């Protein structure tokens, strides 16, 4: 499922392109090649001021972008993955977990908690793509399920911001089962008439797309985000055909009826707030 060439390609590549130019003071945009003062890009929510290319942002940054200041209460922050299969390729899964945790960001590929979006209470889960490519194992599945169950208990809407290469291979069958588990929790939420908004950011693929990420009452994508089930390389190898221009990008999905709207990062909070206020009955 995690069709993506692991962590290093997508994120590192983008990061490198962004930061390489002298001393980090200047950044060359990976899309329009314009050289821009890095601070300008950061001030612009990590979006290129020249061409509107949306670069990746960390999960923590996203909380700041979406939630009312001081409203966030994190849940399940100490939950960590275990290498129950003793899975080993070039490194063991345990080593990979340790290395990712040591980076100091989060303890797994998702951060969950309660907060408010312009006053509306939400249970929110945001992926951290820098943690093993945002891959979904037991911890991600469990934390999302608990967030949904907390929403059921507290009668609040759910927002999930996805950025993931898909299921985490190192947990094999149990990572696959997280798809069923999270989708089943969403079924309960739906029966209770509580809104769920799925925000799909670059990239959202594999088992994450094929479960909760596609199940929003409203599916919102960031501009040009790569969204799909199979990765483009796998498709190309299978059908031995060139992929159409813009294939699996947010705009392409909008054209094919798979997402409701494309929303720029700067407008995301306001859009979420408006939709929630219209759908949610406290």
């Amino acid at each position, binding site marked *: 499922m995690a069709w993506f060439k692991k962590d290093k390609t997508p994120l590192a590549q983008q990061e490198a392109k962004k930061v390489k130019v002298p001393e980090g003071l200047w950044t060359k945009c990976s899309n329009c090649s314009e050289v821009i003062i890095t601070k300008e890009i950061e001030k612009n929510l990590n979006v290129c001021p020249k061409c509107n290319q949306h670069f990746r942002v960390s999960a923590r940054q996203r909380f700041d972008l979406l939630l009312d200041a001081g409203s966030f209460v994190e849940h399940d922050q100490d939950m960590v993955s275990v290498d129950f299969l003793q899975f080993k390729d070039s490194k063991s899964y345990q080593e990979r977990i340790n290395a990712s945790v040591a980076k100091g960001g989060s303890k797994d590929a998702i951060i969950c908690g309660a907060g408010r979006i312009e006053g509306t209470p939400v249970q929110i889960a945001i992926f951290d793509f820098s943690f093993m490519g945002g891959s979904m194992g037991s911890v991600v599945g469990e934390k999302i399920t608990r967030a949904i169950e907390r929403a059921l208990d507290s009668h609040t809407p759910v927002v999930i911001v996805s950025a993931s290469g898909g299921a985490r291979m190192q947990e094999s*069958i149990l990572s696959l089962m997280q798809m069923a588990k999270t989708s*089943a929790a969403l079924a309960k939420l739906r029966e209770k008439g509580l809104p769920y908004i799925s925000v799909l950011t670059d990239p959202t693929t594999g088992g994450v797309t094929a479960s909760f990420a596609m199940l929003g009452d409203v599916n919102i994508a960031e501009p040009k985000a790569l969204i799909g089930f199979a990765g483009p390389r796998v498709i190309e190898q299978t059908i031995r055909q060139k992929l159409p221009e813009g294939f699996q990008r947010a705009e392409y999905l909008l054209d094919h009826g798979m997402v409701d709207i494309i929303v720029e990062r700067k407008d995301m909070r306001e859009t979420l707030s408006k939709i929630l206020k219209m759908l949610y009955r406290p």
Partner: protein
Amino acid sequence: MATQFYMEFEKPLAELEQKIQELSALSTDTMDLGAEIGKLEKRAEKMRESIFSSLTRWQTAQVARHINRPFTLDYLKLIFTDFIELHGDRNFGDDHAIVAGLANLDGEPVMVMGHQKGRDTKEKVFRNFGMPNPEGYRKALRLMEMAQRFKLPIITFVDTPGAFPGIGAEERGQAEAIARNLREMSRLTVPIIVVITGEGGSGGALAIAVGDRVLMLEFAVYAVISPEGCAAILWSDGTKGAQAAEALKLTAKDIRELEVIDEIVKEPLGGAHRDHQAMAATLHEALARNLKELRQLPAEELVEQRYEKFRKMSRFVE
């Protein structure tokens, strides 16, 4: 057993069985080779036993993919009666990689569906190698919802390398189709029995595999990604499938230990492909027994138990 396809690791067995055949052809009234043949047959049986009791995970995957392994339509013929195939998703088309329809099991109506592979080249292509497009999953869901309306239990057979990775599949929402099935299957108010019969390939398998009972044939496999796909990503070498198969722990025994399946259904000696009748008989018994148990449960309890069953599937520390 007209054309027997032998797997790499069955070579010694293949040689022995050929010798038995040759001797049988030579055997006449004047030259009775019965005793000799009997001896060899005993030896073949022993060999089969020893090979199949110690298969590696990679070898198990070969058995799971065996070309003569019974497919969904074979089980439909051997276990059920009066099968009426129902076609189409009422939206885009009919996907031949999933077959579905009404049938009787021990005289009681049920909804049956499953992935369908082909045996010869023409049928393989017709069945898209058992890899469904979104309309296949949508057909499955349409008929599951119909089963619910008419209070019919659902039985699904899982045997796919995975959902088809193609342009059209993406355009028509492969991810959405799978996701919706997962969500809806979790709430259906009729009993659902899932049988992993061959390859349980990732989300493409799971999309019809959310059930109250999940059975798995002894030499079937079930994993988040194919060994080859996993090898291509983690070892950057698609030929390292054997290594990846070991790492993925994809056999029925492995999956049972993780409590993702409820029951392992024993296969005939040498694998289901050697004796469709025997395999079907064993599976028939397992289906009937599980269905009888599930029929006792009120709908509400059934749905809540199904939720709890999948809810528990995870390993972590906190």
